[in-house]
């Protein structure tokens, strides 16, 4: 099993004491699977995604990737897991503004030491980014920036792709195109895709669906 989540509990401090976000979530995913994570605002979708990606620590419960409990790791090893196994695609793209498109796309792959020039070239061409490689993120449209973010994630061939409303900032047509590409490429790399979305239409295109309500699987 690529990803196993067991009894995950997480709360954040609020003005009137701790607010429970996740109340004991368990789930699992294997390579090649696609899973839509849906739910109301505040149901804990993004928090679950962040915990799975090792970006944050649960209060209790476990997240295991390739059998390794990332909660037991130190900061550096967890960073290594993020770098080597996981790729995250954000709604806000979160590209590195000081680097060119080419450098942004190559960034994580080079960081993980798995840069594959042919694959990157293939990716950028299929993403329609070949003409934009020397530009800076701020010179691109939103759809183009999100494509850069997807290319950056997939260039490193992560086992687990996490996407947080990846098309939330895009218009419907662009969103469909981007999602098509993402699904195709995820399938080609035999990665697992966990995508947070509140769009029924997009969720329907995923293999499975997990609906959260008040921090629990509904």
């Amino acid at each position, binding site marked *: 099993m690529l990803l196993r989540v067991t009894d995950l509990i997480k709360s954040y401090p609020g003005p009137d004491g701790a607010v429970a976000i996740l109340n004991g979530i368990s789930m699992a995913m294997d390579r090649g699977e696609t899973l839509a994570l849906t739910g109301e*605002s505040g149901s804990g979708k993004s928090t679950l995604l962040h915990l799975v990606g090792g970006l944050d620590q649960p209060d209790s419960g476990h997240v295991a990737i390739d059998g390794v409990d990332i909660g037991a790791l130190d900061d550096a090893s967890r*960073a290594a897991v993020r770098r080597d196994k996981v790729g*995250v695609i954000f709604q806000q793209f979160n590209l590195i*503004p000081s680097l060119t498109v080419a*450098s942004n796309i190559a960034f994580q792959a080079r960081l993980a030491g798995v840069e594959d020039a042919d694959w990157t070239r293939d990716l950028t061409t299929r993403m329609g980014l070949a003409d934009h490689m020397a530009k800076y993120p701020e010179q691109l449209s939103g759809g183009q920036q999100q494509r850069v973010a997807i290319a950056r994630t997939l260039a490193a061939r992560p086992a687990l792709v996490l996407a947080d409303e990846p098309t939330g900032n895009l218009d419907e047509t662009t969103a469909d195109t981007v999602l098509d590409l993402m699904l195709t490429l995820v399938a080609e790399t035999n990665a697992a895709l966990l995508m947070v979305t509140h769009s029924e239409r997009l969720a329907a295109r995923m293999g499975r669906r997990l609906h959260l309500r008040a921090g629990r699987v509904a």
Partner: protein
Amino acid sequence: MTRAGLHALLSHWWRNPMQLFTLVVGLSLATALWSGVQAVNAEARASYDAAAATLGEGQFAQMTSDAGMIQQADYIKLRRAGWLVSPVVEGRLDGVRLIGLDPLTAPNGLGPVDLSDGELTVDVLTGGVFFATQDTLDRLSDYNVTLVPSPDVAPGVILTDVGTAQRLLDMDGFLSRLIVASAQPVNQAPLADVAPDLTVRTPQNGTDVARLTDSFHLNLTAFGLLSFAVGIFIVHGAIGLAFEQRRPVIRTLRALGFPLRRLVALIAVELLALSLIAGAIGVGLGYLIAAALLPDVAATISGLYGASVSGTLQLRPEWWLSGLLIAVGGTGMAAATSLFQLARMPLLASARPRAWAMQAGRGRLYQAALAVGLLILAALLGAFGSGLIAGFGMLAALLIGAALALPVVLDRVLAFGSSRAKSVIAEWFWADTRQQLPGLSLALMALLLAMAANVGVSTMVSSFRLTFTGFLDQRLASEFYVYADDADQAAALQTFLTSRVDKVLPIQSADQDIRGLASEIYGPTAHATYRENWLFLQSAPDAWPRIEAGEGAAINEQLARRGDIAIGDTITIAGQPFVVLGIYGDYGNTIGQVIVTETLFNTLFPDIRALRFGLRMDPADVPALSAELRDSFGLAESNMINQAGIKAFSLDVFERTFTVTGALNVLTLAVAGFAILMSLLTLATMRLPQLAPVWAQGLTRARLGRIEIIRAVLLALLTAALALPLGLALAWTLLAVVNVEAFGWRLPMYLFPLAYLRLAVFAVIAAVLAALWPARKLARTRPADLLKVFSNER
């Protein structure tokens, strides 16, 4: 409405006290740096002025007697013959110089002493009152006189009434000399008829050493200007930041219908109040700094004048004024641009906290063009300018140009580094550093100026020290110098001394115009002393042997420069032509000088007899000989110069000067370091969105923190690398341009690589210290805060 608007503006500070703190501290430090340097400078100057004003020696002609003392009856005869002269009785009391003046006739009254108390005046005239610094008064035993501590009297000097001085010095009926008032009545009997044995000495223009010290002061002033520049940059940075941070508040206020004009006025008033508070804190801080530094400065000046400065530090009104002016003026300058931008800002302009940092390409281009323009102007002024104004103009153009060029140059260097980066982290590091540059550039400019100032000043001071000691070696090559009062005494002295010392070197001179320039002709005895110690700046082959053979003359740099005389040219002395065989440095002299051999001199000027003698002897015997001369010839202390003592003293003085400049160096660097810290802290919150993705993709926070420090080191090193040539250019301008314009001679420039290296290390340490806190903060950022960057509900 105004109240509500003010509340909204001020509430920003309550919510962000750290920002308010950095703003106030930034302003205060800039002011403190300026006023501290000014205080040290002003105090040194004031002490010198007090010394000069004590008698106004340089201002008035003096009348002296060949016999040493003047009969008081002669004084009365002179007054009754229409001579407006005023008596001076001078001597030593407990090792302190006691000067007695007649307040009724002295042209300056009692000099710096202010008597607005009638009773005290009565006591001065009929009883006995000493005016001196507390320090000086503490050294006296009881003389049954009223002691009035007077900080403006020169240190080591007591001012008192002439009658009191006569009584205490046992000089009843005698006077030491007379001051000649500058305005004399139309009817006056000739001096020869009234008092034939008195001679008038025209006003002195100060000594060589005093002139050297003027140069030193001028250079300290330049340092003050530099600290001003550093301060302005810091103030500018702090104010610009304060504006940007509050942009959202300002925008919201405007959107809610607050009139722009009133908003601008509110902010202006708020900034004025803040700058006044910060300025006042800064002046106080500067005072403390000066107080901590002053004992050494006092010693420095005292050394050069042979008198000591009062150790008390007075908070002078001009510091308050100039300090507050810096704070308010700097704030005003910085705020003007920001207010202008605010006035032009579209109502719905998005809140882009980084916008202030990210200069538009055109702005960058404009800045680069301005920088290049200023640097070219500096070069032109250096090459073709003349006059002190041009010298200072060149300094200003050089500094501002270099500061403006810094971000542009650093950008190019970082771009180059980026293109050469191998690893992905390196690539990101270079690119990210470059991205941060605009936000740091003001702080880096301050660092650049601070470092350049330090390089410049340490080069200047060190060069000055080498020159000065060299000058002493050259000018006071003999161990002991004796000045006779007249020809008879000179002859007696020469006979007396010949058997007692290794060699008596008569020093004889004549005043002549060389190429229309007032000059002194010297005819020293041919002796190894001169060959060994008088070093030529330029010379013909075998210059000394040929001069000793009477084939030519040596001239000083001043004469060569002003008369446009080169080696091999011919000058006319007393109607005879001489070839110039050597040109020597003559630091501190204002007039021309020519050296010919003694025999030649005696032929040219047969009537002139040497009154001064250099004595080559065992330095250990100097005190004994000095005492003997005092006892058997009645020679005054001022007629004898102990070279070894002067040299040891001067070196000691310079050591202390180094302590002061060293402390000032650390101070400026510390202030520049604080500017960096402020900028980094501000950037830190703005930069989270840039760092979060990097973190998300697998860089630990600790690593990011380390990279921040490396970045600070890199920027500091790059700035240091640029500051070195700038500092050297600065030193060169001070020594070779400003000094020549101001004093007519050029201070040779020496290089001190070790000092520069140490400075670079200091700068890096300052940068690391500044980066440490932001880096630590970054390393400890909670993941939740980083995750907020990714939050969709931003």
